[in-house]
């Protein structure tokens, strides 16, 4: 599998990242190198191998359903660009 410049532009759009023309070409090249490595990995027969989520075979630990967080709104909102009535304000969202 390989990707071209238009794929990079689409990914940039989805990730809301501006990618300049010269960067687009270079990025496509670098990502294709990674994909070549992936192709190599995918060539290995793993039909009888259980997928591994992490090298230790660890499983998710669970947390008790108890409230442990307090209201720290003032602290969080101190770094927000705009707030009002306890709300975070963002550029108008139009569906």
């Amino acid at each position, binding site marked *: 599998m390989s990707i071209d410049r238009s794929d990079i532009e689409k990914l940039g759009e989805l990730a809301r990242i501006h990618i300049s023309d010269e960067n687009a070409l270079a990025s496509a090249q670098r990502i294709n190198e990674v994909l070549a490595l992936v192709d190599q990995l995918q060539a290995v027969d793993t039909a009888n191998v259980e997928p591994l989520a992490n090298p230790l075979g660890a499983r*998710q630990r669970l947390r008790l359903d108890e*409230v442990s*967080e307090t209201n720290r709104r003032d602290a969080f909102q101190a770094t927000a660009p*705009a707030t009002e009535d306890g*709300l975070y304000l963002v550029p108008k969202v139009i569906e």
Partner: protein
Amino acid sequence: MTWETVIGLEVHTQLATKTKIFSGASTEFGAAPNTQACAIDLAMPGTLPVLNAEAVRMAVMFGVAIDADIGLISAFDRKNYFYPDLPKGYQTTQLERPIVLAGKVDIQLDDGSTKTVRIHHAHLEEDAGKSLHEDFHGMSGIDLNRAGTPLIEIVSEPDMNSPEEAVAFAKKLHALVVSIGICDGEMAQGSMRFDVNVSVRKKGEELGTRTETKNLNSFRFMERAIVQEVARQIDLIEDGGTVKQETRLYDGDTHTARSMRSKEEANDYRYFPCPDLLPVEIDQAYVDAVRASLPELPEARRTRFMDSYELSAYDASVLSDEIATAAYFETVASRCGDAKLAANWVTGELAARLNSEDVLIQHCPISAEPLAALIARIIDQTISNKMAREVFAAMWEGEGEPDAIIEARGLKQVSDSGAIAGMVDVVIANSAKQVENYRKADEAKRPKMLGYFVGQIMKASKGQANPKQVNEVLLQKLDALL
């Protein structure tokens, strides 16, 4: 050529945990904006999610209640998209390995038959925050209290063929999740939200192109949205057009739906396994323990109501579907001692009032105990049914306990047999003509003629004579004249 409608549902159900799915922030409804949004919910750098055990238990509880296979190993994925009420830039959800696998839900149709709706799967995920679009100087306001509230998204197979079936299924799911205590069922607060997938086809043909209408939060909206969408698709095709695969948004204020985005410009969510969360592993013993803790399901309750209270299938079904209604009814029945009368009141006067005032039974201004006390006054013949309805209305308005209202309004009915006999004698003496007609009438016609006498007696007693006794005494005395 007749059209067939094909409907599948995706149901977002908020789980009734005390805290978020990945953080220890409270999920309580109605708090001031952003006071329950902690660093994890806000996606502050350096935070990591830790899964809530109770959310897992509730999801498994749903699974065993619909007879589903449980994913003993399930895993979380990231669904990437940008929206201000999703601070992380992705929703943590389950795509490849959901916790609840295929199951089924039986629905009862109007003709009395039962239909099985297959559940494709149900998965755990987090809810987003809320965007408030009223004008804040040209900006939108964001409240992240809801961000991270645990949800299960229940995905049905396209097994429903009419709006009625879809609503019956939605109501059945609602009753189920509330009954097993995993959701508070408060639709107005968004505790259950529906996305409906609708397509039409000519009978026997391949499935048509479907559209998805999102975010319906009431049964009525859902029904209207489906009816409209089916009509729109059929019109489109009959006019020579084709249905485009698209997402539509229903507006409950205007009762119209509009296209939100079409498939061509659809979001590419770029799902991938969430590196912050390990696979969730549960064992069969855990699933068995959850199954053993399953409370009575609506289905079993209905059968029990029919058996132990001798209720009709209809009454039993109405009273058993929602656990709040069932609990209310059972309290009234045991306190007043007459299950049939209790059922009549709960499905009749009470249901009508709740319906007309649009109040849920859990918020009913008359709780079960006072209603039982009122019914007890009918049973001991202190008041008639008619008077009881008056007392009921006064109780609804908050005028107090039934006995106090009966006393204050002088509503006691006359059950003194001597007094009633006296009134009957007077009316018979003053109604020579009617008595003569009664005597000459066919036996079959006589019962209908009693109405006149009863009316006169009730009038004489100012409506306070015990109607049952009046009937008995009257019949006795008239028959003596034959």
